[in-house]
């Protein structure tokens, strides 16, 4: 009987110890002070990197072949659609140069220098398969060894994808711009108004807040990063286009919905901008001490 009670007590103790450890780790992680935890995760990411790559290498041809067999009709239809899109693209290619000139003029107009073009970039492959069903990041096949650091912006050929949230030696994790934790300073190009774009979850459009009620915002307008001092994004990165505008009388601002320009469901290759934000210099206020010589002199002269 006493032995059974002892076993029960030990079991409870073990459970309590594990639960307390879990809560302590969760607290450490939430406070962002998990240096050891981040290192451990980074090391695991590096360690399992070759396994992921090997698995991808082995399974990809089989998966592609299988998809080719089961979705042959879909592929044919997609092929036909792509051909028509290519024809359209060829027709509109002449307009691209003109549009680019317009974009540069608009950027100059709103004071957003197109600095993004001059920033060095690292091209990285997106590791195809997510590790779990609860994924909020994508994994890249490059890391610190290639100059990638936390906070760096990531874009595809079409527009902004997100920012690097974790970088180990050979791998990095990117938080997508649709993530509810994501926000970035943006600018509506035509009006030049600045706002804050926030993610609302996978598959959903972004919401831009702090756009004044008086500002005229039209669906279809282009939204770029504003690149204010200290922002993790340089100015002029294409974020997306406005799809909806709703006045929010309570906040005295408009709620603007923006559809991301990058197709986040079909990312294969992305570019990491090796951009370190310009942190504004701290403002040093020269306060003259009360007993400064000048003041002392004046006081002395006055007496």
């Amino acid at each position, binding site marked *: 009987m006493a032995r059974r009670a002892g076993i029960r007590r030990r079991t409870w103790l*073990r459970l309590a110890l*594990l639960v307390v450890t879990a809560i302590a780790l969760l607290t450490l992680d939430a406070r962002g002070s998990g240096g050891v935890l981040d290192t451990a995760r980074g090391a695991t990411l590096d360690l399992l990197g070759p396994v992921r790559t090997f698995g991808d290498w082995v399974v990809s041809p089989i998966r592609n072949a299988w998809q080719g067999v089961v979705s042959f009709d879909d592929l044919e239809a997609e092929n036909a659609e792509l051909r028509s899109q290519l024809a359209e693209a060829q027709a509109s290619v002449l307009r691209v140069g003109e549009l680019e000139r317009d974009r540069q003029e608009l950027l100059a107009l709103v004071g957003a220098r197109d600095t993004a073009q001059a920033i060095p970039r690292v091209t990285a492959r997106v590791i195809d398969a997510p*590790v779990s069903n609860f994924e909020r990041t994508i994994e890249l096949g490059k890391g610190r060894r290639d100059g990638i650091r936390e906070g760096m912006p990531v874009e595809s050929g079409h527009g902004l994808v997100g920012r690097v949230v974790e970088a180990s030696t050979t791998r990095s994790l990117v938080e997508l711009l649709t993530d509810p934790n994501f926000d970035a300073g943006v600018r509506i190009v035509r009006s030049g108004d600045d706002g804050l774009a926030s993610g609302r979850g996978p598959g959903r459009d972004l919401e831009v807040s702090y756009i004044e009620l008086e500002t005229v915002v039209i669906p279809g307008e282009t939204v770029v990063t504003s690149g204010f001092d200290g922002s993790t994004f340089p100015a002029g990165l294409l974020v997306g286009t406005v799809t909806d505008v709703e006045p929010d009388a309570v906040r005295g601002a408009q709620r603007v919905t923006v559809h991301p320009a990058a197709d986040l469901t079909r990312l294969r290759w992305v570019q990491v901008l090796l951009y370190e934000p310009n942190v504004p210099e701290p403002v040093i206020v020269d306060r003259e001490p009360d007993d400064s010589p000048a003041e002392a002199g004046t006081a002395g002269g006055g007496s």
Partner: protein
Amino acid sequence: MMAGAGPLARSALVLTLAVVVHVGLLVHITPAGVIVDPLVLLAVAGGIVGGKGTGASFGGACGLASDLILHTPFGMSLLVLTLLGYVSGSVAEQIPSARWFARAAVASVLSAGGIGLFGGVGWLMDLVYVTEAPLVRIAIVTGVASLLTNPLLERVLRWALIIRPRISDLRESTTRGG
């Protein structure tokens, strides 16, 4: 080579293999678009073969391994899989003479429940990417995977944790043999 090794070394080997199989293979095989997490299945099987104490410990080890590879808050999987291992052990202790298929059915329900528990903790922590995931679909697929693999996982864990086979299993094999 591992025959003389203790339960700790054997468990570490099983966990390492599970992680390698997970990230190298299972992430590419996604029935109904769901990734089956072998660590959830192992935590449940650990509880079923070892009881609540061993279930909690082995579940905790699975959780820690899971925390290292997932990008959810560190400690979340540890909490969920520890509780899952403990609950699995508690349930298994109520049905000591259950046959293998009955245990597989129980493991299936517990694994699906583990996904629900993960979703619940995600909800408490306000993790939108967890609560907005197709939890019912994930739970069903995980449950089916557990139903199919539990007999094998039980054998593996009996070897790893050095636990003798159940009397019901021995009786069953004797009946079959003779």
